[in-house]
């Protein structure tokens, strides 16, 4: 690990409803409309992959492996990760939507086989907004975690991470291997170029049935109902600064 050259980085790479899609709750409250909507990589996972690629380009790591958990058609999504630059992909196949604890247990199984020096994941997926899987994985693996990363530096088997926290920027140092989750300002992911899409076709994707991993995958949480959020109604327009101030004073807000 000290030399770094043998280090492998595992990247969690989830597919979600594209962030530009306006989410509609189904009228019967059984879910949100996902038929025919555009799916994309979770934006925080693209940042995770970009960071892993940069660490490889710096010579800190040798191999970048993207991991996805999902149905058979997840292959196309994983190909995007390969086109972005990952060396290979692992597809854990399941038709179920997995909850964070299950995802963490699955990732731990892969880690036991792959022995990565670092795991980088998005801090949250923009569908369930759970913000849990990286932390849970670090706990189960009994390794350090550094969430909400905006800067990552690796030297001598240790990683120094700057974290965006409510109070400001926290810096911590951890021994490798470790789990890092990414925040928005860590980097700007690269765009996929056409030749890379061609190249990605020959990169390997390992396929593993989730059921074959013997993890406890049962859902502890049941979602019973979906509703649309309450909407704020459109307010009034005022014509100038003095009218605004008098309205606020009337309301007792100033």
């Amino acid at each position, binding site marked *: 690990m000290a030399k770094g050259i043998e280090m492998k980085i595992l990247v969690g790479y989830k597919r979600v409803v594209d962030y530009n899609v306006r989410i509609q709750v189904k009228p019967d409250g059984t879910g949100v409309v996902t038929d025919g909507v555009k799916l994309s990589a979770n934006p925080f996972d693209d940042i995770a992959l970009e960071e892993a690629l940069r660490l490889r380009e710096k010579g800190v790591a040798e191999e970048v492996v993207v991991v996805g958990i999902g149905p058979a058609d997840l292959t196309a999504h994983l190909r995007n990760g390969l086109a972005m630059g990952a060396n290979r992909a692992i597809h854990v196949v399941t038709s179920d939507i997995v909850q964070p604890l299950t995802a963490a247990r699955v990732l731990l199984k892969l880690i036991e086989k792959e022995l990565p020096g670092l795991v980088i994941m998005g801090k949250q997926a923009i569908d369930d907004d759970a913000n849990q899987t990286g*932390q849970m994985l670090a706990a189960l693996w009994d390794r350090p975690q550094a969430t909400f990363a905006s800067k990552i530096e690796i030297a001598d088997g240790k990683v120094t991470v700057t974290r965006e926290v409510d109070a400001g920027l926290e810096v911590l140092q951890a021994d490798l291997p*470790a789990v890092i989750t990414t925040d928005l300002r860590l980097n700007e992911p690269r765009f996929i170029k056409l030749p890379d899409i061609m190249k990605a076709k020959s990169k390997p994707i390992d396929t593993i049935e989730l059921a074959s991993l013997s993890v406890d995958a049962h859902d502890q949480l049941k*979602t019973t109902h979906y509703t649309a959020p309450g909407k704020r109604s459109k307010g009034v327009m005022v014509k100038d600064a003095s009218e605004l101030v008098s309205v606020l004073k009337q309301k007792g807000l100033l």
Partner: protein
Amino acid sequence: MSKILVIAEHLNGKLNPSTARAVSAATAIKAETIDVLVLSDKVDAIAKEAAKIQGISRVFTVERAENAHPLASMLAPQIAKAAANYSHVFVPSTTFGKDVAPRAAALLGVAQISDVMSAEGSHTFKRPIYAGNAIITVEADPSQTVVATIRTASWPTAADNANSAPIEALDLDVALPTHTRFVELKQGKSDRPDLQSASRVVSGGRGVGSKENFEIIYKFADKIGAAVGASRAAVDAGYVPNELQVGQTGKIIAPELYIAIGISGAIQHLTGIKDAGTIVAINKDAEAPIFEVADIGLVGDLFKLIPELEQAIG
């Protein structure tokens, strides 16, 4: 009957108001006991503050040198051990709680519920998904410990002068790892009200134009005693530090008055302010989406309007 353990958030020896909001969520469930756990290297002052929160039964403290900084890998094993006597563990859904609660849940082998907005019962909760564009009702398994983070903007601050709960030291006897070390916290120095708990917030966006121009926002905020916030665009552009970001990936806040200046109103920003009492938008673009959610809108040049506002306030 439920027994709830609320994990205290604190910084520099002071209790964070997010703790009293998590207590509010706990009181919404008819609980037999609500206890607060303070993990720190110096617990006394924090525990005394916590003991005053209305509705709590006891404050437990664990004073260890390893608890000097909120490192999840240190705190989570202690929380998991302390959780043995409880049906629920609540943690504020701040960067502190989001970091530590899932780690504690995984050590307990249980799922975690993120961003609880309301409690429909002891094991049924509502929480937002898709940046708040859908709200789900989640049922937790009653045979498991419920570990949840509490969406602070959805809950009032429990009164903090109405109680004198007993304080007891707890010996958890947990071995802690040495693999993670705190280096430093870079914290902006400010005498302004705290963004997360302020009753008034003035935020600036890309329309402010530069770090230098942001002075006009600070000055106006000081004039009305408000905290200062910013949109992601303003933080990305380097006008202000990250801790001022309001929105889905920044702070989710619920002030009585929110004034958005030069902020167009991306959905991710609106997610952070939709619990505000009154939203005022000032923007030169009359078509900006922020006007769709604002209670009061004013179209115009912020550099002309802010001095006029200051004058009108007197």
